[in-house]
């Protein structure tokens, strides 16, 4: 009885899914022809602040990227929790590193424990939506999307599911580094840091489990502005480390959703800033701006031991909203460069 009554409706739905299936089969076989000869490897993704190893290959490959979307409750500052929406369980999401010319096969899985749907838009993609239409997935589902990394650079990826500002405000962003074909100059230390703004009804450190505050987000009135999703993600035992004389390279991005960063390291001068994560660099830079959905690569050499301080140099953000990190530098003192004692006091 009941079966017959709904027959017309499911025929319509079936027809459209069959047509979609036929269309995507044809498209996939074209991909297979082009990518058939490429060696296949699975990308090693890293949780922040770590960075995947440089790419040793000199030729293109097909790179499998396995990424999850996960909703996790954790501390946003000691004593206050927040429900973060993440790629791979961390804020920012796991870092991806590929080589210009690689074909990237991205597998996105939304964990069954998730409450809401998610997808991914990678700024490294040339094509409408950057992968978002292909990857919109309900909890428990997965999707695959293939693109060619045509352009080298450091690119933000993010969730693009409505309401987009909320998904990003909850931490759904990360970065993909597309190394140029010629590779990158070797350095001693590489780190991955992203700034993001967060919106809660309670003020900074109000305690408890704080929900997302939609109105504060629309008003761009952040309660927290953070590096790597927590006020202490780069301080104390989590501080970045380097040695005197190391060549240090930071892959720095702004997740937003709303606030641009004025990135500065107190106690260092950037030798090179690859503004916007592009190929050209500026030299001798003190502070660099990074728009939401943008990135920068900075390089510097710590000259003396001690703590360098990473900040957003709009300093209320550093001292009242959490945008602060430490790089602990070890090694020999160089008083000819930097004398720790105040000269007048020491000599009379």
């Amino acid at each position, binding site marked *: 009885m009941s079966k017959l009554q709904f027959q017309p409706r499911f025929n319509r739905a079936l027809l459209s899914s069959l047509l979609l299936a036929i269309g995507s089969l044809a498209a996939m076989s074209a991909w297979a022809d082009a990518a058939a000869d490429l060696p296949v490897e699975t990308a090693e993704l890293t949780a922040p602040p770590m960075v995947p190893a440089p790419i040793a290959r000199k030729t293109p490959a097909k790179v499998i990227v396995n990424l999850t979307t996960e*909703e996790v*409750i954790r501390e946003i500052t000691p004593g206050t929790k927040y429900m973060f929406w993440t790629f791979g369980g961390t804020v920012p999401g796991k870092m991806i590193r590929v080589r210009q010319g690689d074909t990237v096969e991205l597998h996105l899985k939304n964990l069954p424990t998730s409450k809401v*749907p998610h997808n991914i838009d990678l700024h490294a993609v040339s094509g409408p939506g950057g992968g978002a239409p292909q990857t919109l997935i*309900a909890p428990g*589902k997965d999707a695959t999307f293939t693109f060619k990394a045509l352009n080298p650079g450091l690119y933000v990826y993010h969730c*693009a599911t*409505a309401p987009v500002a909320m998904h990003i405000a*909850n931490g759904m962003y990360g970065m993909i580094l597309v190394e140029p074909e010629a590779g990158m100059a070797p350095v001693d230390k590489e780190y991955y840091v992203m700034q993001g703004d967060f919106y809660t009804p309670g003020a900074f450190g109000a305690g408890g489990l704080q929900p997302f505050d*939609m109105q504060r987000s629309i008003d761009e009135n952040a309660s927290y502005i953070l590096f790597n999703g927590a006020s202490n993600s780069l301080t104390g035992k989590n501080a970045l480390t380097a040695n005197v004389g190391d060549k240090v390279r930071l892959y720095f991005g702004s997740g937003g959703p709303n606030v641009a960063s004025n990135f500065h390291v107190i106690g260092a001068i950037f030798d090179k800033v690859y503004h916007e994560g592009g190929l050209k660099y500026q030299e001798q830079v003190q502070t660099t701006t990074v728009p939401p959905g943008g990135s920068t690569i900075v390089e510097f050499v710590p000259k003396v031991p001690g703590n360098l301080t990473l900040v957003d140099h709009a300093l209320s953000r550093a001292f009242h909203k959490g945008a602060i990190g430490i790089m602990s530098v070890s090694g020999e003192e160089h008083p000819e460069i930097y004398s720790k004692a105040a000269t007048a006091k020491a000599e009379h």
Partner: protein
Amino acid sequence: MKTAVACFAFVLGCLHAADYVPIAGGTLRTALPMDGETVPVAAYQLRSKPVTNAEFLRFVLANPEWQRGKAATLYATSAYLSQWHSASDFAPHAPNAPVTNVSWFAASAYCASEGASLPSWTQWEFAAAADASRKDARNDPAWRAQILGWYEKPSVERLPDVGLHPANIYGVYDLHQLIWEWVDDFNGLFVTVDSRAQGEQKVFETCGAASLSLGDKENYAVLMRIALLAALNGQDSVGSLGFRCAKPAQ
């Protein structure tokens, strides 16, 4: 008209008639504007509560082709009713908790067995705009914040019973804060009727397109409903996705 159910809901063969409430309809300012910002909604009846595990068990026992393991894979994936202990036992879930992990095809078949169908998106959205005292509470920031809170709570393994939150002004329960719900036209929602944009199916899925085409931009809760429906195929099942049914006005 309330039907008194003088038997245990899980007893097979119990003559249980679900409670449908009349909704007069009207003009809806919709979050999915297709042809103008408002749509007329004709009078209809809506099931006051989502379909429960006990009700769905009765249905699959009477219609074995919809039992887990028997339903064709075109109509239901392996996730279909996978949270139940067996095809005929919803343990450890409560009889009066909403049934979830049900495909659109199975939900449609269930509603047909009640002489009903799944509600259209606009029927669902019309009823869901109401709170306990207002037919359209959507401009109230406090109400919006309250229903938005559910989306940020972790999903739970065992859902609470239906009907625990207060009913809205129509006598409808649980349109918010319990489950996602199927709608009849979920896979037609994202095809624009504007011929200038032919082929722009599911334009909604990219953020730029979404910011242009969505109405009610500050109702994040309803935008998430739409995003979830856009992510689904008819055979999909999700652990937090259930359904209710609708009928034409009497």
